[in-house]
């Protein structure tokens, strides 16, 4: 399969490393600012909810962490798939870097969701609720990916085997998303991600909501790039470009 030229640039570790190094600070600082603004807005400026009062404010972190977790898994699965099919090591590096971040965000989503559930639905957790079960499955898929990798001594083998798992598990992401439509769950129907109609959230809440989505996304990519850089260094040990980079910095 003939691929465009720029695609090959992204298969080059030094190129990606240096690009990441250049972009990361921008992502990091803007993430910090956006999250700070969004959190302040959501906690102190936005009005209380008609039904839930003040506790609704978890809406400014819970859906965002869940969304980032799902995006992280999709990115991991796509990169792992690309790495598997075209044998591009860098793609596997992206997958490996995304996994712990995605697991963390998914963990946050589960925890903030449970905390939110207690005062609103009356329970921290509901076994058998589809969205909760599949979100928990997502966390296990991240952990399983990492555990599977750890069981191999040969990194290439670890890459390829875990790639199969990552791709198999990607069906879970649309299942989580559509679970509220397909089943009767404790969760409410989608208000913002439902693209066929205008969001039903009030604008005074929608703005900080979206700000936090942006902020968490920027944060994710900053974390990803930094982890990717570390991963590239580990994989490219002994290569000339890396030695030049080290000398450059130290000389």
């Amino acid at each position, binding site marked *: 399969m003939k691929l465009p030229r720029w695609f090959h640039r992204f298969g080059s570790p030094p190129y990606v490393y240096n690009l990441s190094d250049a972009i990361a600070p921008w992502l990091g600082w803007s993430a910090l600012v956006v999250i700070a603004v969004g959190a302040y807005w959501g906690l102190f400026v936005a009005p209380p909810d008609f039904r839930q009062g003040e506790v609704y404010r978890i809406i400014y972190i819970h859906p965002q962490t869940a969304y980032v977790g799902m995006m992280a898994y999709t990115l991991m699965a796509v990169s792992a798939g690309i790495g598997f099919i075209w044998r591009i090591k860098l793609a596997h590096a992206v997958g490996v870097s995304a996994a712990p971040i995605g697991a963390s965000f998914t963990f946050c989503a589960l925890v903030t969701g449970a905390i939110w559930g207690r005062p609103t639905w009356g329970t921290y957790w509901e076994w*058998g609720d589809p969205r909760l*079960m599949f979100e928990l*499955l997502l966390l*296990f*898929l991240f952990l399983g990916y990492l*555990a599977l990798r750890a*069981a191999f001594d040969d990194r290439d083998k670890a890459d390829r085997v875990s790639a199969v798992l990552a791709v*198999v598990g990607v069906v879970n992401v649309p299942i989580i998303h559509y679970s509220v439509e397909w089943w009767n769950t404790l969760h409410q129907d989608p208000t913002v991600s439902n693209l066929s109609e205008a969001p039903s959230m009030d604008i005074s809440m929608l703005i900080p909501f979206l700000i936090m989505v942006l902020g968490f996304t920027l944060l994710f990519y900053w974390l990803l790039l930094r982890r990717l850089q570390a991963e590239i260094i580990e994989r490219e040990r002994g290569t000339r470009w890396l030695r030049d980079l080290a000398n450059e910095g130290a000389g």
Partner: protein
Amino acid sequence: MPFRAFRLVFGRDLRIAFRRVSEWGNPLLFFIAVSGMFPLALSPDRLMMAAGEGEVYGLQSLGIGVLWMAALLSSLMGLDRLFLSDVEDGSMEQLVLSPAPLLSVVYGKLAAHWLVSALPLIFLVPVLGFVYQLPSPALGMIAFAIFLATPTLTVLVAIGAALTVNIRSAAAVIGLVVLPLCSPILIFGARATVLALDGDAAAGPLYLLTSLAFLAVSLGPIAIAAAVRVGLE
């Protein structure tokens, strides 16, 4: 070529299975032992307290959970026999290198595995259901639901087996990877059985089990073949 390969591998695996009965027999005995022994660990008084409306000592609800979980674990036990012995003695490599399409080989193995490991389970589960005093509609439902669930279980277990074929501590990884993937089966299967117990229609979960089965059987073997190839590298 594909069908011939399927038939040949299917026949071969079946013949091997009948020579090594304990390979697939032990997981079934495990199922009988676990689900049969569970009531021994429970005191009748506490069960009576946990009883729902019209339930016999709460045993029935417990029984549904135990039967499904034991069926799942028993399926997991049969993981090794799918690929390990073939990889170890080199025949898997020969199969991969042969002109036979690997997908046919995988389907052949899955079919043979299902026949000896899953089919008996479909008959065993309602029999053990007697122990939990499940009424006949529930017994029929659990057998049917297990029947619908087994293709997916077979495929998922095979994915786990293919991924871990050369790993030292496969068991831990499998627990982390395969069991959570099986959780939808558990949820829907148990739900269908409980609905049947209450006398309600269980079409919803059954449809879901069926669609999961179709999904698994159509796409799963592709992943399994890929994993087997990687495992042999």
